């Protein structure tokens, strides 16, 4: 049997300790948030809440349910994820499939490669992008959050690399049987690309759910905001109250109420990601490695 030396034991104990502490540090802020959201507001204001709720109450969640705009923004975000990710997949899948072919099979492949990679290197920046969206008449429209994000080039490349690694024989067999490229994609390539598609879908879902800046600058009113933009607006107004706090007692009273509500809001805002992520994690590690480190 292998015996473990004393110094090795010390080392391992240290390694485990560091890793467990780091892992805890990554979740404790969320637990603190959760505890605050379920605590009584006066306990929170007194700084007594750490990782367990004090005088447990669901008041802040009841308040959130009565906040129509919060619910509407939550709905907008869900809709945005569903439509946005569908649009991305509809465009990306055929494009990645085409690009996964060699230079001989796809006329102009080198041109397309350069065409797409350039957009990863240079961008017009914030203001010209805003002006293009404005020119297209998308300001104030739901589609201003969908269309500019329709082709995530990096994800498309991950998909392309994934499709490239598939056995070519299946596709050739489908072609010989007379299937069109679209038919081949739908009935041969997509069914065997599930892991790759799941990875990319996870990235797309996350980027749509977490986007807030586009909603904030492209939409006209808070009533159209997706959840993250709405949260931004809310947090800003709380900040403003904090600044006025010293002079304005009314603001102070409001703030005490807001702190637990804010925690509840942030927790609900993070919740879908906390739920989705563990399910797709096993694909995601594979996909990320595939996309970033390839020979």
């Amino acid at each position, binding site marked *: 049997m292998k015996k473990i030396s004393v110094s090795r034991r010390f*080392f*391992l104990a240290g*390694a485990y300790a*560091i890793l*467990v502490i*780091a*892992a805890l*540090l*990554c979740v404790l*802020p*969320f637990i*603190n*948030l959760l505890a605050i959201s379920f605590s009584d507001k006066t306990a929170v204001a007194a*700084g007594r809440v*750490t990782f367990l709720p004090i005088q447990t109450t669901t008041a802040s969640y009841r308040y959130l349910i009565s906040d129509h705009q919060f619910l509407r923004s939550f709905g907008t975000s869900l809709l945005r994820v569903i439509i946005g990710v569908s649009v991305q997949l*509809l*465009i*990306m899948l*055929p494009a990645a499939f085409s*690009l996964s072919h060699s230079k001989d099979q796809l006329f102009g492949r080198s041109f*397309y490669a350069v*065409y*797409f*990679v350039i*957009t*990863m*290197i*240079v*961008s*017009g*920046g*914030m*203001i*010209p992008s805003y*002006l*293009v969206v404005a020119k297209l008449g998308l300001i104030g429209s739901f589609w201003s959050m969908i*269309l500019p994000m329709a*082709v995530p080039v990096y994800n*498309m490349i991950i998909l392309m690399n994934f499709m490239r690694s598939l056995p070519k024989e299946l596709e050739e067999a489908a072609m010989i049987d007379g299937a069109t490229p679209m038919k081949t*994609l739908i009935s041969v390539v997509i069914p065997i690309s599930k892991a790759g598609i799941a990875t990319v879908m996870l990235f797309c879902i996350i980027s749509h759910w*977490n986007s807030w*800046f586009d909603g904030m*600058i492209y939409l006209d009113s808070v009533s159209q905001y997706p959840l*993250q933009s709405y949260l931004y607006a809310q*947090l800003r107004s709380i*900040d403003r109250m904090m600044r006025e706090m010293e002079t304005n007692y009314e603001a102070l009273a409001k703030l005490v109420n807001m702190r637990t509500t804010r*925690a509840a809001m*942030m927790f609900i*805002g*993070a919740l879908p*990601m*906390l739920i989705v*992520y563990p399910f797709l*994690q096993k694909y995601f*590690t594979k996909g*990320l*490695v595939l996309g*970033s*480190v*390839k020979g």
Partner: protein
Amino acid sequence: MLLPAVVFILLFSYFPLYGVIIAFQKYNPTTSFSSTWIGFQNFATVFLLPGFTRAVVNTMFISFMKIVAGIVFPVMFALLLNEISIMWLKRSIQTLIYLPHFISWIILGGVFKEILSTDGGIVNTVLSRVGIRPVFFLGEKGVFPYTLLFTHVWKEFGYGTIVYLAALTNIDPGLYEAGMIDGAGRWRLTWHITLPGILSIITLMTVLSIGSVMNAGFDQVFNLYNTAVYETGDIIDTFVYRMGIEQAQYSTASAVGLFKSGVTAVLMILSYYLADRAAGYRVF
């Protein structure tokens, strides 16, 4: 089958690229893309603004710290995780440390304002118990860049760890056996086999991160900063935002944006070239 992708990229990536010409114009909102040509005047105006130089310096300082920490911490954690033989623990730790990556800076901004606050924030509460005076993590200009660094590392180190961990599992176990037969201890194995084994990945990730020198993290800074820390915390992107979106100075803001984009493009081309030379990495 490529057509939709090509069209959307044309619309939302190439049109804005063409749109940067407004950086050379006196922008007129009514005629937009056909305004008066004034050459480099916008650049001259902008480069003389004190806020601009400050933003460039801050951007480079913050992103440089982030790049270094973004290599050191993930490599360290990958090495430590690699030593763990209890699989369920290893997997749970991985799951937990990637978690923050998936949460937006809107929410994290709120979380950090909450836990770092000077009245009742949990971090300062703990500090005061051990006798340290409260620290204004988000309001003291000397501290703010480091708050940015720590919160960034906190959010992203787990994500970076995956890549190195994957590289570690690809090292040929035969090398370790050979090393042990030759009488090498753990540290020597790590130094002579593990590190050289992942060196190419470390080089690759370092080289690729050169391209992000001008990106100090808009989402993060925007959600954490305030006027008290502009001096050390204002970065190019937040500067462009305030100038362009808040004050509607489209032309000058685009000039700053173009400056940033130009430097980034040069750095990225350089880094892709180096990555190809050093590790045979190709994007496409």
